[in-house]
Structures are given as C-alpha cells and as structure tokens.
C-alpha cells in the first residue's frame, strides 16, 4: 500500500521541491497540493492523506490553524517544512514525527520520510496526535486577544470577546452584536474569524459568526438545511455540516 501524501505551502517553488524529491520514492503517492491553509483543510477532508508536508507560516490560515481545524481522528502524520519557526521545534517535541528546515538536503528529506514509514506501523499514533492536539489548543488560548478595540469617530470602545453574541457581515462591514448593543466595524468576517478562538466561535455561514456559548438550539429547517438559534432569538442558516457543529457543541 502506498503512503498517500499531501503538500501544503504558499510558495510554488517550495512545493515543487518536495514534488521533485518525492519522484524517486515509489511507495509515496501525492494526492494533493495546496497553496493555502483554507484550501488544505478542505482537501485533507476530501483525500484523507496519510502524510502531510506542512508549511507553518502561511497567510490567513497557518499550518497550525490547519491542524486545529481537523477532527482529532482524521489527523495525518505531519512533517513540518518551515523556514524558521520556533513553534515548529516546540511542536516537534510534543509530536514526535519530524520537521525539516528550508532549504534542506535530499538526505535530510529522506530521513524524515523514513521516520514517517516507521511511524505508519507504530502503535501510538493516536496517542501522539492527542498530545499534539492538546499542545496546539493550549497555544491557541494565548494567541487570541481577549478583547477587541473598536474606533468610531473620536471614541474608542473595548469589547470583551466573551461578551460578543454574534457577528454579521454587511458589505465591507461587520456588525458586532454585544448584548443589546451593536458595533459596526470596517472589517471582513474572515479577518474577524482569524481573531477569534475557534474553540469559542463558529463561522456558521458566509455571513455570520456565532459565539458557541450563545447557541440555544440547532434545528432542521426546510430542504435539509439546519438553523442555529441563539439565546437572544437570532437565527442563522447553517451552511456547514450539522454534525461538526454538534461535535463542537458537545466538546465545550
């Protein structure tokens, strides 16, 4: 059985290098190549690879974000390929697979592959992944700000992230619903989403992010869709898998 591998890096020549080096490895098959984190999350879900060559520093969705977004039982083996990242070294200490620093020699690359082959037969993959995931989630808590600064005219307002009920998109603006008050920000939802911990907030659709704490119910609606109902009465149509949302709610 071939090892099914995926390459994730935002720089085309960096992907190409791994491609070149994998040409001489008959037991490896490249099932996907992604130029960004968001694309990677989607492709990993579809192809379910055994092995991931993952760059850490990528715009908007980093290599760590990719791993955080995957369900725990779908984690592939990960080889970090990075120019320089202290986090990668720390991550490696927890999750004993490998990291390679750019630029790398063919011999070093082969060594990492060898490790992956051995690991594929190891018993403790699940345990390692669990420890790695715990480490990642611990990192995340410190990485997200606890409050947002909103400037309107001369006034600056600070909003505690935990007070935010939901956020709706309105053109180039975002409306923050905080208790009974609304704040308008000139910001895209994607940018806001990156600011908020995925443990506490969920993008339910293209135009809304909700605080998981504020969800009262998730109900079926017409045409197989589902609706998320918040404690404040607001409703949003769900455009992502309802099972995933239920899992996230259960893990709170």
């Amino acid at each position, binding site marked *: 059985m071939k090892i099914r591998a995926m390459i994730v890096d935002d720089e085309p020549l960096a992907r190409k290098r791994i491609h070149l080096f994998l040409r001489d490895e008959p037991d490896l098959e490249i099932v996907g190549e992604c130029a960004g984190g968001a694309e990677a999350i989607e492709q990993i879900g579809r192809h379910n690879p055994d092995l991931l060559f993952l760059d850490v*520093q990528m*715009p908007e969705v980093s290599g760590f974000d990719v791993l955080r977004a995957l369900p725990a039982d779908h984690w592939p083996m990960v080889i970090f390929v990075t120019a320089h990242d202290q986090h990668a070294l720390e991550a490696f200490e927890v999750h004993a697979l490998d990291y390679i620093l750019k630029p790398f020699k063919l011999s070093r690359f082969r060594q990492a592959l060898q490790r992956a082959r051995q690991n594929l037969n190891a018993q403790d993959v699940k345990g390692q992944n669990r420890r790695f995931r715990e480490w990642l989630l611990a990192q995340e808590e410190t990485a997200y700000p606890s409050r947002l600064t909103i400037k309107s005219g001369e006034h600056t307002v600070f909003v505690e992230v935990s007070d935010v009920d939901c956020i709706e998109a309105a053109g180039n603006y975002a409306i923050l619903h905080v208790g009974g008050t609304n704040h308008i920000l000139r910001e895209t939802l994607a940018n806001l989403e990156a600011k908020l911990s995925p443990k506490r907030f969920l993008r339910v659709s293209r135009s809304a992010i909700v605080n998981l704490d504020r969800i009262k119910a998730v109900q079926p609606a017409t045409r197989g869709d589902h609706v998320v109902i918040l404690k404040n009465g607001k409703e949003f149509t769900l455009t992502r898998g309802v099972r995933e949302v239920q899992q996230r709610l259960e893990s709170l």
Partner: protein
Amino acid sequence: MGSPGIRVVPDILIYLVTMSACVAFAHSRKSQERERRAIELEAHLAQAKLQALRMQINPHFLFNTLNAISTLIHTNPHTADEMITDLSELFRASLENSDDQEIPLSRELELLRRYLAIEQRRFGQRLEVEQNVDPEILNALVPPLILQPIVENAIRHGIESRADFGRIVVHAGRDGNQVKLSVSDNGKKPVDASIMENQRQGIGLANTQARLQQLYGKGQSFSIGNGALGGWTVEIKMPFCPAPNTKPVI
C-alpha cells in the same frame, strides 16, 4: 587719576575682545551645529542600511529565497542564477561603504527591481507589481534606501497577509518642482484599531521620515493614508534636484 584718553583704550580693547569672542563663539556654534547635523544624517543612513540588512537576514525572507533557488537549480538553472545575483546585489547595497546621502532615483529603482524580482519568483502568480515611473525623473537625487523599506513593508503587510493575491503599485513622478514617490498595496488591515494605528505609524518608517526631515526640512512631506487598492498608500515628496551628469557623454 589718569587722563580720560587712556581710559578709552582699554574700553575699546575690552569691546573688541568681547566682540571677537562672541563672533568666534557664534561661528564655532554654527560649525558645531553643522557637524551635529552631518553626524545625525550619517547615523540615520547607517540605520537605514542596517534595517535593510536586517530585512534580508530575516529568516523568513532569506531561507525561503534560498529554498526557492535550490529548487530552481534543478528545474531552471538560468533563473536560479539570476536570483542569486539579485540577492547578492541586495546585500551589496546594504553593506556598501559609501556615505552618499543622495543617489539617482534610477539606482534606487534598480535595487527595488531586484528585490521585487526575488519576491515575484517566490510568490509566483500571487504577487502583482506595477511600476509607473516618469523617465524624466530617473536622474533625480533621492536618499538611498528610501523606497526599499516602504515596499518591503507593503509586501509584508500586503501579500504576506493575504491568501489570494497581493498587488503593489509603485509610482514615481514629478509634481511641479517636487519628486513624488508613492507605494500602494492591497493588504488587509487589522481589525484591532490600536494595532492598526501602530501599523500605520511605525514599522521602521520612522527612520525614513527622520532622514527626509533632516535632508529637506520643510521641502519634503511624508504621509500614510488609505490607498486606492484597499490597503495603505505611502507618499513621499521632496525637492526635484537632478544629479550632475558625471558620466562623459560620447
């Protein structure tokens, strides 16, 4: 005691001595002032070079560039070759020992071209660069490394923050008796207003501003504002002063 005529002489003497002391003092103060200014200018130039070096030694830039070259060696040796030369020229410019406070714009743009060539090879289709340069001002004198940090900044906050594609427009033209340089990007702006303010103000551009101020005083301006591409636009104006033609024209 003593005639009044005798008294006058020491008075004049005292007057002359005091006067010349004052003149000498004022003169030395002026030259001290000049010296201080020259030292400050030199210090800021050194700082600009250091900043450029720091950027080149930035592991993300340096190692990703070397990684790209190491791929090209297998797939496209000619381009690899060019990229090594471009990288070397960038280092050379910041290691250069010259204390010239001004260079022709054409030289600054040449350096910029090399830097952008590297970034474009790294990012491929994801980086789009447009340069509009009025050929009439290619010989205008500008401070060395004046555009470099601004463009690097635009790339870092522009393309490196966007997963889709980054766009940078560099414009160099003449506005009456002034040279007008501007750099615009389509980078994303942070949601947090305080971060936004820091980003707007700072990031190594303080030194650029100080250098302009010292060289041209009121004859220059430096501004950062919302750009037409959605990100920031940095605009610099300084007096137009063509470089003396040192090369013999044949």
